């Protein structure tokens, strides 16, 4: 798989333009709700797969990447909405760039376009599960077993495995029907041979007795043994000038046999067609009956779980447990009946196919006679009918095809051509009118026809044997595949169960050190039960808190991905799911990611700033491998907490005359900086219980606090008689006093014109000085050398005002006494 080196996004979802340098390492994006974090995840997912999970699946009807992928102001310009990812492919040791546009999501531009790189990225595109959102977590943990099974099966690509099994099963059914049909052909050929030789059985001595009697008449040597190479008409060609090809007596017998067979047509296969139609009615429509059969094991398992009047699935309370059990038992019985109906249907279908095949054999022989008699009209009719019956028999091997034959099965399924019997009677009359053959000629034609019939019989046996071997091979392969599949899935679920339990214990070991989980797969469902403080196994949502359940979701996801990809699990996008881990257990979660997945690059978003800091202190990320958004506007997209770049963006907006965009960016940057400085300097704005401080409350209190701290620093320097410090502080105070921005903030409460709500209405010339004033003001709060924001330390009773490089370090404690 891959790792991400860098991400470039333009006009996609809520992002206007954004570059992130991920450097193949775990990366965190922090920001309040609505700041554009998920938009970045959407963009990366789109870059990798061409899809956006949030715009597809359940509950997203009417949404699409083409219509809702671009930024809302660029929906008519999908070509402008693009993502460019620089990726590293560890298995190939190569780096590549993949660029994907909303206008052509399935045609990414890959550079270099090496075949191995394209193949690797095509594989990545098939794995949208690399992205995990909180929505997916809930589907793993709190959903019912059948739904969980579907979700997990989708991740494990069990649909692909199921398709192979289904194809093997279909092949097995088709070959079983083909074998049954071939056996019917053998029976038909055998009867034809018996009929011609006028023998009761096809035992070797009976055949040879009938044949040798004619050979003796023709003074041909007797055939001693009947082997695979024996020719019943051997030496006949050498003894006669013209090879005999027609046996009048035999032909008449054949025609009579066919006429007799037609007499039985009205009732032929009646029982089979009746049973097939009944079974089709019982099964309902093709799709619904298959859906019903899928529920069978789920219902049967549920029956065993009923211990009280409350339904374990929907929590409905019944009058008694017995009443609920009877209700579920009735459902189980109905589904069992459906399974039996399916088997019954296929059994009768195979029998009907055999009947059709027998008729096909008779038609073949009759057609030969019609051809010999040059009755091309009858021969054509028989050929068409024969082809139709062969196709009909071929369709009787799958429920889908049989369903399509419902109309034919309801009527006369044979579709016997009209006036057939008249035509057959005519050819019979023509044969009867032929002069009787001499004994010698009759013997010659008898032998040549016997050889043809024996050849047909042998060929039918060969075909039947081959069909039997094919059916056996298909059955063996299908059963072998099912055994391997079952063993492998049981092993997989066992390993996932172990990993899941281990991961969860790693996070929650302090209070759930003995946690275990059990995954119980049955056909169509996957039950998950977890140990609750050694009181037994229960569904995750029974006793665990929602926070713990979310933690389980992440752990189950990690366990599944580990087993699915093994060492190729190198990238995962966790969209705000880390929030679901309790605050007390986050450090352990970081350790889990670091220690158990050292080769996996996680892209993590969170709206909790504290959590982002915890990830840093745990060593999962660094300042360089994280970014914070402090807001979002429709014009700018995510506002990145970056003091250096924001002024360039504002200047660029002003240069284009976009005062509203520049005003929005300045306002958000001031909000970010004011909040940060209020925190770092210990400012005391009027308290708000909801923590939603207005810029007009924060900034003046920050300025006041800063001035107070500088005053304290000046007093301290005076008490220590520190001339150098006194000079430095004096310079700072003078610079602050001369700052237009400071003057503006001091006027904040009284002068409406400087209030940011009015900014968007300013002209460019009016707003440019406002920007310059605030830029100047904010610079007063930063170190001139390292550019970091100043902070008071310690927080409770500050003793110094410092920067990160310590170049600025103003003592606040005066000399005692």
């Amino acid at each position, binding site marked *: 798989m891959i790792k991400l080196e860098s991400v470039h996004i333009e006009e996609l979802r809520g992002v206007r333009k954004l570059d992130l340098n991920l450097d193949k390492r775990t990366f965190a994006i922090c920001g309040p709700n609505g700041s554009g974090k998920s938009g970045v995840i959407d963009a990366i997912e789109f870059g990798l797969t061409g899809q956006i999970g949030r715009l597809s699946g359940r509950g997203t009807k009417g949404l699409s990447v083409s219509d809702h992928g671009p930024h809302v102001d660029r929906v008519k310009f999908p070509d402008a909405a693009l993502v460019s990812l620089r990726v590293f492919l560890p298995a190939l040791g190569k780096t590549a760039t993949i660029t994907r546009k909303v206008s052509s999501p399935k045609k990414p531009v890959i550079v270099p376009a090496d075949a191995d790189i394209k193949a690797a990225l095509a594989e990545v595109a098939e794995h949208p599960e690399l992205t995990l959102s909180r929505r997916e977590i809930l589907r793993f943990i709190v959903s019912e077993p059948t739904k969980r099974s579907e979700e997990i099966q989708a991740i*494990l*690509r*069990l649909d*692909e*495995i199921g*398709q*192979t099994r289904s*194809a*093997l099963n*279909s*092949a097995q059914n*088709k*070959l079983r029907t*083909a074998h049954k049909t071939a056996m019917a052909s053998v029976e038909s050929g055998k009867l034809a041979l018996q009929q011609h030789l006028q023998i009761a059985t096809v035992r070797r001595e009976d055949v040879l007795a009938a044949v040798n009697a004619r050979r003796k008449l023709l003074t041909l040597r007797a055939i001693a043994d009947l082997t*695979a190479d024996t020719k019943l008409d051997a030496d006949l060609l050498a003894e006669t000038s013209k090879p005999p090809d027609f046996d009048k007596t035999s032909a008449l017998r054949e025609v009579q046999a066919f006429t007799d067979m037609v007499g039985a047509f009205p009732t032929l296969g009646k029982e089979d067609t009746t049973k097939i139609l009944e079974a089709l009615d019982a099964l309902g429509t093709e799709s619904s009956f298959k859906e019903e059969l899928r529920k069978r094991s789920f219902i049967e398992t549920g029956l065993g779980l009923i211990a009280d009047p409350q339904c374990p699935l929907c929590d409905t309370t019944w009058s008694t447990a017995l009443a609920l059990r009877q209700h579920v038992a009735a459902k189980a019985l109905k589904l069992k009946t459906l399974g039996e109906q399916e088997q019954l249907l296929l059994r009768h279908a195979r029998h009907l196919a055999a009947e059709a095949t027998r008729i096909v054999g008779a038609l073949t022989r009759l057609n030969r006679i019609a051809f010999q008699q040059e009755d091309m009209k009858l021969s054509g009719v028989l050929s068409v009918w024969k082809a139709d019956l062969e196709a009909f028999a071929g369709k009787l091997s799958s429920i889908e095809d049989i369903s399509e034959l419902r109309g034919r099965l309801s009527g006369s399924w044979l579709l016997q051509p009209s006036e057939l019997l008249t035509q057959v009677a005519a050819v019979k009359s023509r044969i009867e009118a032929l002069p009787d053959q001499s004994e010698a000629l009759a013997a010659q034609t008898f032998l040549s026809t016997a050889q043809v019939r024996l050849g047909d019989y*042998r060929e039918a*046996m*060969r075909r039947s*044997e*081959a*069909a039997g*071997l*094919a*059916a*056996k*091979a*298909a059955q*063996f*392969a299908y059963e*072998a*595949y099912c*055994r*391997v*599949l079952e063993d*492998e899935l049981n092993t*997989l679920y066992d390993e996932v169960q172990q990993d899941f339990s281990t991961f969860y214990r790693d996070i929650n070991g302090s209070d759930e050190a003995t946690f275990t989980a059990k995954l119980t797969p049955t056909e169509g469902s996957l039950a998950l039960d977890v140990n609750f403080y050694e009181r037994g196994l229960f569904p995750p949502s029974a006793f665990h808190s929602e926070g713990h359940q979310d933690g389980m979701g992440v752990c189950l996801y990690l366990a599944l991905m580990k*087993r*699915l*990809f*093994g060492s*190729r699990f190198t990238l995962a996008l966790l969209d705000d799911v880390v929030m679901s881990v309790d605050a007390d257990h986050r450090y352990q979660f970081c350790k889990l990611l670091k220690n158990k997945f050292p080769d996996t690059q996680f892209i993590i978003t969170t709206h909790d700033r504290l959590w982002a800091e915890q990830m840093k202190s745990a060593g999962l990320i660094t300042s360089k491998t994280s970014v914070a958004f402090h807001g979002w506007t429709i014009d700018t997209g995510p506002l990145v907490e970056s003091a250096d770049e924001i002024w360039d963006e504002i200047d660029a907006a002003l240069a284009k005359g976009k005062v509203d965009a520049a005003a929005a960016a300045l306002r958000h940057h001031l909000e970010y900086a004011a909040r940060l400085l209020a925190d770092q300097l210990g400012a005391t704005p009027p308290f708000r219980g909801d923590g939603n401080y207005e810029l007009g409350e924060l900034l003046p209190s920050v300025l006041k606090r800063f001035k107070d701290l500088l005053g304290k620093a000046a007093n301290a320097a005076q008490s220590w008689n520190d001339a150098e410090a006194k000079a430095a502080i004096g310079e700072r105070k003078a610079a602050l006093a001369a700052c237009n921005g400071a003057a503006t903030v001091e006027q904040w409460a009284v002068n409406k014109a400087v209030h940011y709500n009015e900014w968007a209405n300013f002209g460019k010339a009016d707003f440019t000085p406002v920007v310059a004033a605030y830029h100047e003001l904010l610079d007063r709060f930063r170190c001139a050398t390292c550019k970091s924001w100043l902070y008071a330390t310690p927080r409770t009773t500050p003793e110094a005002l410092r920067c990160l490089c310590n170049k600025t370090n103003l003592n606040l404690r005066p000399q005692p006494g």
Partner: protein
Amino acid sequence: MSTLQQKIVEQFLEKLAVSPEFDANKVEPLRELLRPQNKIKTEDLVRIFSMADGGDLK
């Protein structure tokens, strides 16, 4: 094709290859059919399973 699917296919083919009950000549065509990214059709499987040498009249 997922790792799991690959693993199952490999074990499946190995099982067939060592089984005296299964014609070894069919294993390679099956391997070719079940390779990653291939769409498996029932008719292709029927063709492979029908590849028996064929029996002589006995």
